[in-house]
């Protein structure tokens, strides 16, 4: 069996205003990246890159983006990413830049890296805490937000919304 090998680029979307991340969707990111590749590498580059290019995942809360492209030509995509200065979404221009954190062969390794990276970031931030109370506060906040409870909350919110309507 032969399979197509891909590269997954784990990127972080950096925006000045966190709330504007909510405006973004996968299609907008796709169009922005496609446009950047086409202007940086021309018809040839965008044709190389368009085979199996996809935005696999976009987290509108944290700005984490997974981009997939063929292993043989991921450099084309990679080198075009710094030239993106804004993403156009729903008629609005969101100024932003892409910070490429990791390049992996599977989504799984990228996810592992992301978890490790976020842990590192947390440790770095914790050092900035001034008092023990603050540290405990952060600890409590981290422990309180698991994926399960979030889902439950969302369900609850949805249910509540329905009732209101």
């Amino acid at each position, binding site marked *: 069996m032969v399979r197509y090998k891909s590269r997954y680029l784990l990127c972080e979307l950096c925006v000045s205003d966190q709330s504007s991340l909510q405006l973004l969707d996968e299609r907008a990111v796709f169009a922005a990246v496609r446009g950047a590749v086409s202007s*940086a*590498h*021309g018809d*040839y*580059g965008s044709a190389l890159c368009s085979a199996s290019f996809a935005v696999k995942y976009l987290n509108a809360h944290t700005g984490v983006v997974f981009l997939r492209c063929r292993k043989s030509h991921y450099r084309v995509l990679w*080198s*075009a990413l710094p030239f993106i200065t804004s993403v156009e979404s729903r008629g609005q221009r969101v100024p932003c830049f892409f910070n490429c954190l990791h390049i992996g062969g599977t989504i799984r390794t990228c996810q592992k890296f992301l978890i490790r990276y976020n842990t590192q970031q947390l440790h770095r931030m914790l050092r900035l805490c001034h008092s023990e109370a603050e540290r405990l506060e952060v600890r409590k906040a981290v422990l309180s937000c698991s994926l399960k409870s979030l889902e439950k909350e969302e369900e609850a919110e949805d249910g509540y919304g329905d009732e209101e309507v």
Partner: protein
Amino acid sequence: MSQPALYERLVFKNASVYHYLKIYLILDNDDRKINAVYFKQMIISALRDLYGEIGAAFPFDVLKFEEDTLTAVLRVYNSGLVKLWTALTLLGSYQSEPCAVHVTQVSPFLLALSGNSRELELD
């Protein structure tokens, strides 16, 4: 491990860092005049269309351009030869008029372009 090598492998790589291309331009409109600057601009825009801003950023020179016959000699680093050649091939229009570029000779040595064996007239 410490035994000296009995033979030495010599590899001769092409000594020239450049390739030279002799090309000529065919314009649909015969009475249009074009000078060397516009000619180079045309090639650069063809490169940019095909390879974009990054891909087209490699140096090449127009060594000679004859305005009456529309022939030119280009010099390009070996690494950029394929890109330049493909861009020339796919060049299809100049100021929205059809045109074409013929690559007649390519050589790593400029002297080779002084004669063309295909145009030899044998007695």
